[in-house]
């Protein structure tokens, strides 16, 4: 709680009586450091919405950012922080838009005159604006984290490299969580690579998959079946001991699919099989 009830009410009234003057000054001061990256009209719209929301929160009885009456104000601040984070503004640039209200209030309340009561009010209001600014700062940080996580996930989707390990052998390392969307990407890339390189063997390496559950297993099995339809054999590698035990307890069966502990083992196996295939072809010729 930043204010007492009377201080909150007086601020609400000031925001009403000097509505235009405050909104004009607030948006000016807020827009200054964002010049060129946010239009004056946009900045004014944001501060205008904040002003309206702050006023109704105060007149409803809010005395701080945590008040029940401030719920909509908090939602608005969170939304503002998110959109600023997405647009690439820094945390302090975002919080400054809130702090700019101080300048507007200072002028509107004639604090300059040096009247004691006005000064006391201004100090209390400043504390409220600090709270709002800090709230914005935190909301911004959370939004930033979410954006970074989302970008990481997108990167993961893009970085599904299918590499040719050996003549006739391609490999795809699976990393991270294999949701349905990514599994689809992996399957398509692998099948394309089999066609492009004319490889009869593919290694699916799951070393980087932290948990192999039924969904992952089902995706891998589908990929293996699709490769088989194209005449290629898949080998699953990178099954660490703890994953092996978990798969068995879960009840998943990989049937006649060859599985190996490491990528090196899988490659050795594929190369041997390939050499055997070629000898067989030569004998027939």
């Amino acid at each position, binding site marked *: 709680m930043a204010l007492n009830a009377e201080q909150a009410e007086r601020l609400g009234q000031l925001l009403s009586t000097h509505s235009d003057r405050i909104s004009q000054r607030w948006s000016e001061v807020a827009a200054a450091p964002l010049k060129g990256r946010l239009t004056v009209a946009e900045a004014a719209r944001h501060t205008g919405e904040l002003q309206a929301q702050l006023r109704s929160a105060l007149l409803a009885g809010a005395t701080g950012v945590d008040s029940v009456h401030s719920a909509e104000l908090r939602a608005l601040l969170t939304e503002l922080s998110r959109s600023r984070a997405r647009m690439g503004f820094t945390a302090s640039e975002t919080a400054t838009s809130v702090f700019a209200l101080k300048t507007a209030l200072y002028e509107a309340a004639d604090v300059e005159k040096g009247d004691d009561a006005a000064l006391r009010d201004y100090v209390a209001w400043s504390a409220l604006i600090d709270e709002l600014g800090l709230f914005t700062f935190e909301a911004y940080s959370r939004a930033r984290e979410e954006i970074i996580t989302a970008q990481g996930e997108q990167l993961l989707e893009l970085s599904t490299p299918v590499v040719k390990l050996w003549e006739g052998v391609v490999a795809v390392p699976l990393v991270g969580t294999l949701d349905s969307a990514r599994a689809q990407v992996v399957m398509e890339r692998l099948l394309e690579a089999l066609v492009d390189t004319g490889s009869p063997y593919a290694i699916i390496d799951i070393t980087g998959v932290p948990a192999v559950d039924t969904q992952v297993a089902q995706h891998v099995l589908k990929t293996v079946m699709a490769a088989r339809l194209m005449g290629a054999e898949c080998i699953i590698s990178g099954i660490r001991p703890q994953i092996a035990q978990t798969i068995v307890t*879960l009840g998943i069966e990989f049937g006649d699919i060859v599985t190996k502990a490491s990528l090196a083992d899988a490659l050795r196996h594929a190369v041997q099989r390939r050499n055997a295939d070629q000898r067989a072809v030569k004998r027939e010729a």
Partner: protein
Amino acid sequence: MTTSEATDRQVQAISSDEDVVRVRQLVRTAAVAAKLSLVDQTKVVTAASELARNTLVYGGGGSAEVCRVLNGSRHGVRIVFTDSGPGIADVELALTDGYTSGTGMGLGLSGARRLVDEFHLDTAVGAGTTVAVVKWAR
């Protein structure tokens, strides 16, 4: 459920694939804190993954409550999955290996039960489903 002290309680809503990932991460963290072996960590994380996805897919979303439990000197992890979906009409059938009403392998529920030490399924048609599991450190 065994009487035990619960700490570090965390609740995660489940309404998307990303939330299933978050549940797995919470459970992994709790399992490490409870000093479960690597195999047991992997087992409980995998069980949680199955149950979280069932909550999402069949329960229409819900939540997971993850906490560490202590029973005497024994540490463990407890996870309670709750949804207010359609419930399960035939529990025995749902717990049969290979049974699925969808397009899955039908191993999630029965497999999860095998992966944990305690498993309590509470469900009624039209009244949602709650699955509580515990994995103890050895």
